[in-house]
């Protein structure tokens, strides 16, 4: 769940962002409280708060005083365009590299992608 590669607050922010992208957290929906998330992931509540703070600063979440944290309107579209920028570096380039290692030609690679996309 939580790994050692990056700060935990970053991983919490990414996880919430991921849930919004996947649609499991809808816009204007309330996100779990800091203490609930801390207990669930077995991490420090201050770390959760820091992760949520990042998302508030980015306009992905907003705070309703005395009630809790909610997903901003338009958050999904904003996250999607951000993730698209990173998509090539994070997914496509390693894919091309590994394909070359396995002697899969660009044409074959395209065919594989077409086939898997349609299945």
């Amino acid at each position, binding site marked *: 769940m939580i790994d050692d590669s990056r700060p935990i607050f970053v991983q919490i922010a990414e996880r919430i962002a991921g849930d919004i992208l996947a649609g499991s957290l809808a816009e204007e929906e309330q996100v779990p409280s800091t203490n609930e998330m801390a207990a669930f992931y077995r991490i*420090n509540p201050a770390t959760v708060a820091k992760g949520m703070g*990042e998302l508030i600063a980015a306009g992905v979440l907003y705070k309703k005083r005395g009630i809790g944290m909610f997903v901003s309107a338009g958050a999904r579209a904003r996250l999607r365009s951000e993730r698209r920028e990173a998509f090539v*570096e994070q997914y496509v380039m390693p894919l091309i590299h590994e394909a070359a290692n396995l002697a899969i030609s660009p044409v074959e690679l395209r065919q594989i992608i077409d086939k898997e996309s349609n299945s």
Partner: protein
Amino acid sequence: MNTTTTASGNHAVIEARSLTKDFRGVRALQDVSLALEPNRIHGLFGRNGAGKTTLMRILTGQELPTRGSVLVLHENPLENASVLQCVCFVKESQLYPDRFRVCNVLAAARVLYPTWDDALATDLVAAFDLPTGRRVKKLSRGMVSALGIVVGIASRAPVTLFDEPYLGLDAASRQLFYDRLLQDYAEHPRTVVISTHLIDEVANLLERVVVVHGGRIVLDADTDDIRGTAATVTGPRARVEEFTAGREVLHREALGSFAKATVLGRLDDADRLRASELDLELTPVSLQQLVIHATSAHRAPDIGQVRVGGPSVVEDLR
């Protein structure tokens, strides 16, 4: 997503200035300065004999430093009742009077700590399955540890220190300790210090990490600032060397044409891409492994051999 917090130290709950402690000519602590901020969970790590317990004894007013000073809640803790009722120190080998039963220990703690919560204590005693009527000396090792943990959590003391609190405690009970501590801390924030060798188990609970080595502090940082600051690269030796060129390497190992190196420094996306192009495997380094590096990279001097006035052998790793 890049935020760094710096320790202000201004509102420190515990402040130690230049602590030095000698025991009959043997230096246990050397010029230790520390400022712990309120309502955070701190990890205190170090090898056996590094000075962790001595440091905690001084911080809680149970020991006098040879030089230096300590302020707890802005006051000198030594024989200071108003400060000490706000400090709960759970020791590895807590001694209780011979005739004391579990219920007597809890009753004493109730008197000692104004912040004590009886309902919470009862709840924890049940969770840890402690027999309240049994004499403490008849308890198993793990049960004595569990009793210490119950007192530590239920005291709700503004400053709570756990020194290796779980000798003899099984994995399930340790998990129970972490879960209950976290749960109660979330509702009633306070300053907590946990000293343990089981670093991986507590790593995610900590906001701040202090590492003592050879009587000195060699690392004092926010956990999130050090997480991901080192990575291990594994692959063909020549490529590992190519990747590690110009980087600070903490540790190197080779097996035939294969090599493994731990590099210091946060890796960015370009580094990851580079590693994948070189067919190198990148694995994160855990907090526990970082602490191992911090406490063994510079050959640890036997603390007993560091004589007062002698040359300083331990170097600062910061």
